[in-house]
């Protein structure tokens, strides 16, 4: 008993001393954090609600973002008094120590004369009473949630040493109707499910949406006019452009890291090869050539390599080739098949779908083929997509009854959680951090 207590003390001490979370190994106990309602001076009414109400909601979003990582445990705000404006600069640490908080996220929401809002965001170490980071964000009332996400990213980044992923969006395929006549629509939402919007009517079958890493553009596949092919869709202008002129199906499009090239597959006589399309010049280059299904291409973050899947060896496996199509090397081995690879934005790992023993599971592997690791365990998980910081993987899960939903899991294999969507959902793609 005494021994166990000593070990606990030894484990707890370093965390308190430097207030930092090691996210590489997966934390055993999440860090207790206090996020009281953000203060405001005199409450001002804005198109998004009063600044008092916004202060409560901003704190709620930050709390929810941090909690969702599995790395933090927000403390019930009833355990401490709501700070006033003066407390933001000089917090009453005693109350937060009593509530057993290690970190304090506090701030304010004020309305400016020009109609904008300023959201102040400060992170304190409750024990050393040291301010770790502080930043203000100015937003329009309509964009107030982004300030809460930016503040969450600031806190996450300061405490983990990694960039955040909260100020980002997800595009996916919303599903409804019976399986034999499924209606599929493109939809986009904030990373936390807010600001949900349908982008297509459901009239045409749509699949595999992907974000451009640099602008407001998506690529996706549509069966419009019974011509299944890849499209590029600018979300801010509504402009659409079919990619290339092929007699046959094109699919599985994905942007290069600089957003200038789209790679995808085109079928011919029952086979599928990978092509690269230069978006500005609208020229196409063929990268693979053979009697196999070569598909799901994904660039390395430096743009020099492409990982893809091919059945050239007899069954679906992962290969890495140079961006010009040369030097393909198989990287996945072992039991079962491997498909839908996606290169991490950090470059160190490739996420993919491992099919073996009657299960489809999300796995990661190093680009040289070493270190394969299974992250999920379910009947049918597939289609991984990385968070902008390469720490969390989004994927779709299909149950045996056909119901499908979006889920995310930490790179550590912890924190398998459902991403809420209004309808059933599949094919998620995580967009870049917003600017």
């Amino acid at each position, binding site marked *: 008993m005494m021994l166990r207590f000593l070990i606990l003390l030894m484990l707890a001490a370093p965390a308190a001393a430097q207030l930092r979370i090691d996210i590489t190994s997966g934390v055993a106990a999440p860090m207790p954090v206090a996020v009281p309602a953000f203060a405001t001076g005199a409450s001002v009414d804005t198109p998004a609600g009063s600044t008092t109400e916004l202060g409560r909601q901003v704190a709620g979003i930050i709390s929810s973002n941090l909690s969702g990582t599995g790395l933090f445990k927000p403390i019930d705000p009833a355990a401490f008094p709501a700070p006033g404006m003066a407390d933001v600069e000089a917090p009453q640490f005693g109350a937060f120590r009593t509530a057993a908080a290690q970190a304090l996220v506090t701030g304010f929401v004020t309305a400016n004369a020009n109609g904008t809002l300023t959201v102040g965001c400060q992170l304190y170490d409750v024990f050393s009473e040291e301010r770790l980071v502080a930043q203000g964000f100015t937003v329009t009332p309509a964009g107030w949630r982004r300030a809460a996400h930016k503040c969450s990213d600031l806190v996450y980044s300061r405490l983990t040493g990694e960039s955040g992923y909260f100020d980002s969006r997800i595009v996916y395929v919303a599903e409804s109707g019976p*399986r034999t006549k499924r209606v*599929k629509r493109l939809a986009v939402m904030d990373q936390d499910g807010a600001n949900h919007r349908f982008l297509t009517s459901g009239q045409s079958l749509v*699949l595999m949406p992907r974000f451009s890493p640099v602008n407001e553009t998506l690529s996706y596949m549509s069966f419009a006019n019974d011509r*299944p092919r890849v499209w590029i869709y600018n979300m801010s202008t509504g402009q659409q452009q079919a990619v290339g002129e092929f007699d046959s199906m094109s699919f599985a499009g994905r942007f290069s890291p600089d957003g200038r090239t789209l790679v995808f597959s085109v079928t011919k006589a*029952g086979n599928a090869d990978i092509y690269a399309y230069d978006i500005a010049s609208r020229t196409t280059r063929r990268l693979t050539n053979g009697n196999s299904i070569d*598909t799901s291409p994904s660039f390395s973050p430096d743009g020099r390599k492409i990982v893809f899947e091919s059945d050239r060896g007899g069954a679906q496996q992962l290969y890495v080739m140079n961006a010009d199509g040369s030097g393909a090397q198989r990287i996945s081995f072992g039991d079962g098949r491997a*498909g*839908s690879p996606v290169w991490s934005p950090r470059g160190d790992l490739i996420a993919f779908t491992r099919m073996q023993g009657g299960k*489809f599971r999300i796995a990661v592997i190093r680009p040289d083929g070493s270190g394969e690791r299974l992250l999920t365990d379910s009947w*049918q998980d597939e289609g991984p997509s990385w968070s902008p910081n390469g720490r969390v993987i989004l994927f779709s899960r299909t149950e045996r009854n056909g119901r499908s939903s979006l889920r995310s899991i930490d790179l550590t294999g912890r924190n398998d959680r459902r991403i809420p969507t209004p309808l059933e959902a599949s094919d998620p793609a995580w967009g870049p951090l917003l600017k």
Partner: protein
Amino acid sequence: MTQKILTFALIAGAVALAGCKSNRDVLPPEAWQPAPAQPQGPAPIDQAGTVPPPENVGSTALPGSQAALIEAAGSDTILFGFDSYGLDERSRQILGAQAEWLARNPQVRASIEGHADERGTREYNLALGERRANAAKNFLAAQGVGADRMSIISYGKERPAVDGSNEEAWAQNRRAVTVVVSGGR
């Protein structure tokens, strides 16, 4: 007034039918009692008109139609093994008969739709469906059907024929369907 009576008769009939169905659902066979001949409800109506039963309507496969293809070839669908696009004996028979029918109906154009079961990744299954459609098309072409009369399209795992997550459903969903797209007179 007539309409009222008719409405009442319909509701009463529906009540009787519903009663029948639920009896069948909940009672074991030996305890089942036939529904009473007279539906329950208000007293009989004094004036009741009669309506003759609807005339029968049969279905005729028109020349050059999907129904005519199915009637002549036995099926518009061929099935495949897991992760396979090989044609078995049964598939060859059906496609052979489809080819003969297409030869007799030269005005017909066909789209061959390839499908996969749900047990594959989305991208791979699109390519696999295409392979299946292509295998069927090649066989038909070898039997003399002009390639310009046929197109192929793959739906991957997006349009299963049967809703279910079991071997039986998957076997039905791994398929290529010959669909008449034009030429019906």
